[in-house]
């Protein structure tokens, strides 16, 4: 009986000693080695409730963990030439602008428009934005095993300064490589809103996402995103992220 008590005490204490907090896990994920920059082509297949599909392709270049991003729309033909530039700032609103060739104008858009859907897909501008560590509260909910993969389950609760469209996000994180393999997004009424799954490939020693599947469970719409022609650490210069380069479709 005494031994049992001692073992129980040791178990409880060891849980406290070795357990990782949600914030620590989030920090670990954030500190993971990431490419300095990346270039890729993205194909989005949008499927509506009745199964009707349409596809869109873009070329994008990112730097500094997606804090700087430039995107050119390649198809469908009606969107060809439109381009999007985003620069995230720490202490001021993010810069977001669109090049509209039909108007020959660069149009600044509100960063608080980030809950809007990107190109009619199920990804919002917020979903494409890097989450700042200090804009969320984290709770490590549990550990799970799914399809022989050991996972952490992390709850991300946005603080008011995150200006998020979600009340919270649950992330499933692969314990081996700390990649987010699945996320569930909950709306302001705490109802399940979207589910995202991500597939990765090892490219140049980095776990690189190559396929996203985002489903809006509230309206039955989904988007499959396939990323190809990935180039990492090519030495993208800061001056690429200038408004003038929106006008230059990639060759």
């Amino acid at each position, binding site marked *: 009986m005494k031994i049992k008590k001692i073992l129980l005490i040791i178990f409880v204490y060891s849980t406290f000693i070795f357990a990782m907090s949600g914030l620590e896990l989030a920090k670990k994920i954030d500190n993971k080695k990431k490419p300095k920059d990346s270039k890729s082509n993205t194909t989005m297949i*949008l499927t*509506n409730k009745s199964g*009707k599909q*349409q*596809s869109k392709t873009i070329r994008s270049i990112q730097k500094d963990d997606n804090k700087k991003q430039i995107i050119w729309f390649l198809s*469908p*033909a*009606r969107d*060809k*030439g439109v381009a999007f530039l985003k620069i995230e700032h720490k202490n*001021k*609103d993010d*810069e977001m602008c669109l090049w*509209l060739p*039909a*108007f*020959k*104008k660069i149009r*600044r*858009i*509100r*960063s*608080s*428009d980030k809950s*809007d859907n990107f*190109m*009619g897909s199920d990804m919002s501008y917020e979903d494409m934005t890097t989450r700042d560590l200090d804009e969320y509260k984290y709770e490590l909910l549990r550990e799970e095993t799914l399809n022989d993969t050991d996972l952490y389950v992390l709850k991300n609760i946005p603080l008011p300064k995150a200006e998020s469209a979600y009340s919270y996000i649950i992330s499933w994180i692969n314990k081996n490589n700390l990649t987010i393999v699945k996320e569930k997004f909950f709306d302001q009424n705490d109802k399940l809103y979207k589910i995202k799954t991500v597939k990765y490939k090892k490219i140049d020693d980095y776990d690189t996402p190559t396929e996203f599947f985002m489903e809006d469970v509230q309206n039955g*719409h989904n988007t499959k995103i396939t990323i190809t022609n990935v180039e990492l650490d090519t030495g993208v210069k800061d*001056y690429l992220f*200038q*408004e*003038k*380069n929106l*006008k*230059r*479709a990639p*060759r």
Partner: protein
Amino acid sequence: MVILLQNSVFALGFSYSGKINPSLKYQPSDGTLLELPFRISNINFDIYHGNFELQSKVALETRWEDLDETKIQLRELYIHWYPRFGEVKIGKIIHAWGYADQNNPTDNLNPYNFYYLFDTGIERKIGSLSGSISVNLGNMNVEGIFIAEHNSNKLPYNENDFPTELNEPQKDAMLELENPYEYGIRLKHNIFDFDYSISYFHCYDRLPTILGGQWPILTIPPYNLGYRKNDMIGLDFIKFFGDFTIRTESAYFFTTNQYNKSNFSSKFEQDVQYLQYVIQLEYNTPIDVKLTTQFMGNYIVLADGSGFDMNNMIYSTDLKNIFVPGVGVPFLSFMDRGISFGANVFFFDDRLELETFTLFNIEQFDEYSGQMIALNSSYYFLQNFEVELNYLWIVGNDDENNFLTKMEDFSHLSVGLKYNF
């Protein structure tokens, strides 16, 4: 040399895009077809090499009743260079200034083609032989523009189906411009999440004005028409307030009849200062309907001199009341104040776009002065294929001189098919 040339040619890249867009415009009252020109096709063709691009925009313009008269319009053809410091362009170019949508008091760089006045964006503009240089200096951008020729707005003269009652002026009544060069500079800056721009532009009127003649004889002709000199100072800014966006644009014009007295037997001296402004407020509703309202106006600050009163066909010294701006927002040439409301929404994965726009003439606050209502819809029934159904309804009042009253018969229903490539 041959190898070098061969390498250069093979390093060239090409890209193209465009649309084929046949459309029909019907008068709703009797179902007759409006016999006006339209662009059945637009093609953009670019050749690029390194930091250089040769950009062109070509349109095929036709009329249903006269397909043999189909014309190719070279709307733009210019070299675009992207050096590290900014951009350089030279050739036949359509430029665009201003932060507001559609109605831009500061954007006087190109003339308007009035046949396409109710279209959007650069479809309404005519390219000019010009050059521009844009330099980035941190979060500041400075752009200088030089336009080597003066072009006036293309007006629908003697068109029964564009009822503005405009008659083409006699060529011998038009005065030549001595130095038809135009130039401007614009500085754009971002500070504390606030985008603003300051601009200066020296130009000539885009609309001809009677500037002298055999006065005080109260009949015309003989008369002299010309394009007055304008110096414009512009200021525009964008500011985001929570879910709202404010875009404002204002331009202060100094207009002078700069022609030499020797051109006239009697010259109308004109020195006018006026302000044009557009205040635009945007709001995206939680149900993804984009609402936009614009309040625009034209305010004459000073008007010294005399002119010809086109409404009453008499000579007048009351220049303040008869002055018609020759540049600025086209709608403000016909009304002093207007307010518009627009809404835009997408359905079915952006396949269906619905748009409504209403412009009220509020020149007289206590009296109805007319309105223009547009209902536009487009539906992508196949990838790259789109069907368009638009309705434009123009309502004037009892005043025959009111632009909207004159334009009532231009109300129309248009049906179009668009193939984008």
